[in-house]
Each structure stands twice: as C-alpha cells, then as structure tokens.
C-alpha cells in the first residue's frame, strides 16, 4: 500500500520521452565529542526524471542511491548527556563510572530508493498531484512551526526534504490567492494526515492560514513509537517592515491524549525572522523560535525529550532558540558564509563558517566547520567541533 504511487506512475514516466538530470554528492565529515572522534560520510547519486506527455500532465521521479562509509552505526547515547540516560542503565558494580551495555545503536544502511514519484495534473482551475512528493511548508528558514512532515538540520536548513506519500489539490482563487489540501493516506481515514492552506497576497505581504490533523509518533527507548493524535491551527505572514524582509510563522497545537506531551493539551510554537541585503551584497538573516512544548529548564530534561529532538519528531529540544546566517559573494565564484545558532535555555550553541567554491560550472566544493559552545551536559555543548567537506556536481 505504501508504494501504490510508484506502481501507478512508473509505466507512464518511461513511455513519455523523459528528461534526465540530477547530481552526485560526496561528503566527508569528522566530529569530535569529548575524547571520541568520528569519521564518516556518504556518496549520493540522485537521478531526476521528468516527462510531460501533454500540456496538462507532469510526471516526475527522483531515484536516490546513497552509500555511507566510516562510522555507520551510532550510539545515540553519545548525543545525550550521561545524567539523562544513566537512570535507565544498571551501574557496573566493578566501576563507579560505567554501566552495563550503555548503548542505543542506530545503524544507517546504504539505500537505493525512489525519493519522489508523482504525477501532477493541471486543469484550468485545479492542480492535482498524486504520489510521493516534497511538501515544503512555512516561511521560516531554520524552523517551520506549521510543518508537520519535515525536520530541518540547523547546519543545513535549505537541504532538500524527502518525499511524502500523498494526494495534493491546489485551487487558485484569484491571481493572488489559493487554497491547497494535502492528504497523506493511511489504512484508516482517521489516521491519515490532512493539511489545508489558504494563501492570500495582501499588498506587499503574503498571508497563509493552515489547519492540519495528524498522528504524531514519538520515539520511545524500549518499544515502538508512541502515537498521539494532534491538530494544528497555524498562520504565517511574510513581507517588509522598515526595509527589512520580515516574517512570522506560528502554530497552535491541540491533543486529546496529553501523555506524550507532559500533560499539555494545548501548546504554541512560533517564529519571527528578518533579513536584509546590503549594497555590497552582504546578506544577513536572523530568526527566533519559541516552542512551548520544549523544556524550559535544563534540569527538567528527560530521555524522552532528547529522543524526540534527535529523531526529528519535535521541532526543538528546549523552548527558546535563535538562528543567524550571513553570506557574501567575496571572490569570483567563492561565497563566504556563516551560520550561528543558540539555545537560550541551556546557554549552548554553535558557530559554523562555510566556504563555498563554484569550482566549475555545475560543480561546487564546500568546507564547513562547526564549533560548539556550552557545558558538556547541554544540547550543543555536548559536541566539541566538526568539519564537513562536500563536493556536488549537477548534470
């Protein structure tokens, strides 16, 4: 049932004179956590195929092969302060500082899969997209409180998202307004994720209202994910104030089953951001996130909270964060940029300078450093530093 879209669309794609394009990406990383150093990376090949059998139909698919090397099995406990996970392990009587089998291994296997496979039918006043497709919601750069489908990495928030199986309808109301609905079908209608958007342009502002309901899965330590039904009412607005690009994105969540949310039946999550481009092409962006569902005090954190944040099922571990990005095309085809983010609740954060070199047309080489600060028992301070070398070539 999960791959019904693939079975339906592949024959049509192969028959309709497709265009082929895509990229090869290779990444090598090193990460220092305390006294441990990890080397790892991946080679990724993505083949995009698009066919337009007629003016009304677009069929697309992305075949992704990803091979990992180096450290491919991770102990999740390395990314969680010992004081958080230690209550769940029995101490070793022969040593006061070690435990019997303190591991929570996650293995990342090599993959070959169809990331997206979809058909878009464009009628005069309606677009219908069937199949596995990217759903990118919200106006935030580092976080999207109205997005129930994706999780972003703070070190690379603009990386492409994986596809979501579903059915999408887009209905333009006028030049500057539209209604969209997305349904991610499951075996039972009640368990299917549903989200609707109303988007309106008001002068120099774009306003979006959204409503969603979905089953949210929170990872647990010893068993499968704990499922919780949630509904969301959200809004976003993007425009300009005093010459700065300005945006807001916020959601109000509700659940009838508050066990997984610490007893909270209602909570809010919102983000504000601004950006500006100077005459010398320096671009700056800043965002602030508040997530009620995050933990306010470091001492209140639990293993449950960490698992949710590491798994990507919660937008943030704690409540208050800031994100900054600056970028400048400094030399011929060389862009210098920097990312910085901070957790205000545990006073930890990271600074990440990036050099990106468009070495040939369609080929980029980038080097990204990451330097983390904060105590060893904080979200980001747990790590020390990292380095990522990435080469991407498109065709």
């Amino acid at each position, binding site marked *: 049932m999960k791959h019904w879209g693939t079975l339906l669309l592949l024959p049509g794609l192969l028959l309709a004179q497709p265009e082929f394009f895509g990229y090869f990406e290779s990444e090598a990383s090193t990460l220092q956590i305390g006294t441990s150093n990890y080397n790892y990376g991946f080679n990724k090949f993505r083949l995009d195929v698009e066919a337009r059998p007629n003016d009304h139909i677009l069929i697309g698919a992305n075949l992704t092969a990803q091979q990992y090397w180096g450290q491919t099995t991770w102990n999740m406990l390395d990314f969680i302060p010992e004081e958080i996970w230690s209550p769940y392990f029995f101490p070793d009587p022969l040593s006061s500082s070690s435990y019997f089998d303190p591991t929570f291994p996650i293995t990342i296997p090599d993959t070959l899969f169809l990331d997206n496979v979809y058909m878009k039918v464009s009628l005069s006043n309606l677009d219908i997209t069937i199949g596995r497709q990217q759903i990118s919601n919200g106006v935030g750069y580092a976080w999207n409180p109205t997005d129930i489908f994706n999780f972003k990495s703070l070190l690379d928030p603009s990386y492409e998202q994986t596809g979501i199986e579903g059915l999408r309808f887009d209905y333009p109301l006028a030049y500057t307004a539209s209604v969209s609905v997305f349904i991610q079908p499951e075996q039972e209608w009640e368990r299917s994720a549903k989200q609707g958007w109303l988007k309106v342009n008001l002068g120099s502002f774009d306003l979006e209202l959204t409503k969603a309901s979905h089953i949210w899965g929170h990872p647990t330590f010893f068993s499968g994910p704990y499922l919780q039904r949630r509904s969301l009412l959200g809004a976003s607005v*993007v425009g300009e104030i005093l010459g700065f*690009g300005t945006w807001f994105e916020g959601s109000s969540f509700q659940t009838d089953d508050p066990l997984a949310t610490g007893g909270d039946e209602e909570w809010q999550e919102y983000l504000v951001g601004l950006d500006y481009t100077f005459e010398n092409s320096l671009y700056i962006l800043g965002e602030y996130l508040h997530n009620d569902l995050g933990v306010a005090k470091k001492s209140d954190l639990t293993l449950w909270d960490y698992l949710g944040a590491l798994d990507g099922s919660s937008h943030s571990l704690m409540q208050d964060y800031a994100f900054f990005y600056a970028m400048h*095309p400094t030399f011929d085809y060389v862009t210098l940029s920097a990312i910085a983010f901070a957790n205000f609740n545990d006073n930890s954060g990271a600074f990440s300078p990036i050099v990106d070199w468009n070495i040939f*047309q369609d080929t980029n080489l980038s080097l990204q450093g990451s330097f983390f600060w904060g105590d060893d028992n904080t979200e980001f301070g747990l790590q020390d530093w990292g380095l990522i070398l990435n080469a991407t070539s498109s065709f």
Partner: protein
Amino acid sequence: MKVKLFVLILVGVSILSAQTPTAEEIVDRVTAIMSPENSYSKGSQTIITSSGKERVFEFESWAAEKGKSSMTRYTKPAAIRGQAFLMLNNADDIWSYFPRTKRVRKLASHAKKQKMQGSDFTYEDMGGGDVFQKKFKSTILSEETKDGDLAWKIQMIGIPDKDPPHPKIIMWVRQSDYYPVALDYYDGKDFNTKSLVLSDIQVIESFPTAMTMVMTDNKERSSTTMKTLEITYAWKPTKGFFSERNLKK
C-alpha cells in the same frame, strides 16, 4: 526690419522646438519602445569575472502589461535548472522558486539589489515599466555620435522620495528610433559603477530589439552578456499566468 527679425526668431524657435523633443518626451518614447505590451523570449547570460572565469546560463522569460509583470525561469545550467522568479508591480514584489526544495519565497525590496545568479544584472535592472518616467528627473546634456548613430545624451537624476534604483543614470538615445544604446549608472559619490551597452538592434514584429546587452561592473571589472536567442511580442498571457502556481511549473 525689427518685426522681420522677431518673426524669423519666432519661426526658428518653433522649428527647433518641434524638432528637438524635451528630455521628458524622449524618456516617454524610450519607455514606450522598451515596454511592449507582452513578450516571450529565450536568452543566454554569460558572466565573465575579472579573472576571466566564465559561466553560462540560459533562461526563458515572459513579460506583460508593458513589463509590469514578468517571470524568468532558468533552463541551464543543471545546478539551477527550474529556478524561477516572478516579478509583479515593476519588480516591487518578487517571489523566487527553488525546485530542489520546492519552496516559494517572497523577497523583500532590498533583494532587488541582489545580483541575478551572480551576474552584473540585478533584479531591479530586469524590472520593466515606467521607472525612468516616475523615479527620475531628466535633462538633455548634449547631442553626440554614439557608435555611428546620432544620439541624445540624457541625464536622469533620481527623485529621492521615489526610491530610485540609482542616484544618477546617463543614457544615450538613438535619434533615429528613440532606442537607448548605452546607459551609465552612478552611485551617490558620482562614481560610474556599471555600464550597459545595447547592440545588434533588430526590428522584431515592429519593435526595435537589442539582441545583445552587455553590463559591465566598473568596480569589480566583471561583465555579463545577455543575448536574446528567440523573441516574440505576439505572445499573450493566459489568465493567472503571473502567479505562484505557474512559478512552480
């Protein structure tokens, strides 16, 4: 005798004023010629940096309402294939679309000063419409020969409270058909930051059209050549063409 002289002067002034339009009239004609009702074109953009490195882009472009609404979609190189920009209200409102993330983003007005794909053209330079008429005060500086054609040299000073894209522009307008053949852009310190040369002007469907435009950045010593590979003014937009829906197609 005095009466005859007065009449001669009066006739002379009348003839001169009939033959030499005012700067505003020239700018009005330039705006009309440069802003056909609709257009569809395919073009290439070649960037050459100060160190001689070259990057080539290809794109499709649609414009309507005399350039008030426009959309550009890149077709090459592969890395940016499908990236598109929608500009409404003479580029006062810009939306960008990135196919890799399937995300549409509204850009604030400061983004208009950003270089398009690292070229020497900004989004603002690509916006059409009546910017020269509404945001500048124009005067004729002189008449001179430019690339073999007699041209008016027009000085356009930005009107500060109209948010002009440049403080000053000097434009050479060919007298034979009111087509601009060169523009020099100046910053607040009266430094000639960029120069645009329009050449290979052909009449396409009754509209003179520069098939080649070269923008030179005089600070960075880089240049961008924009070539029109294919163009028609007979294209008409369908209802809702300049919309976010079409941007993502």
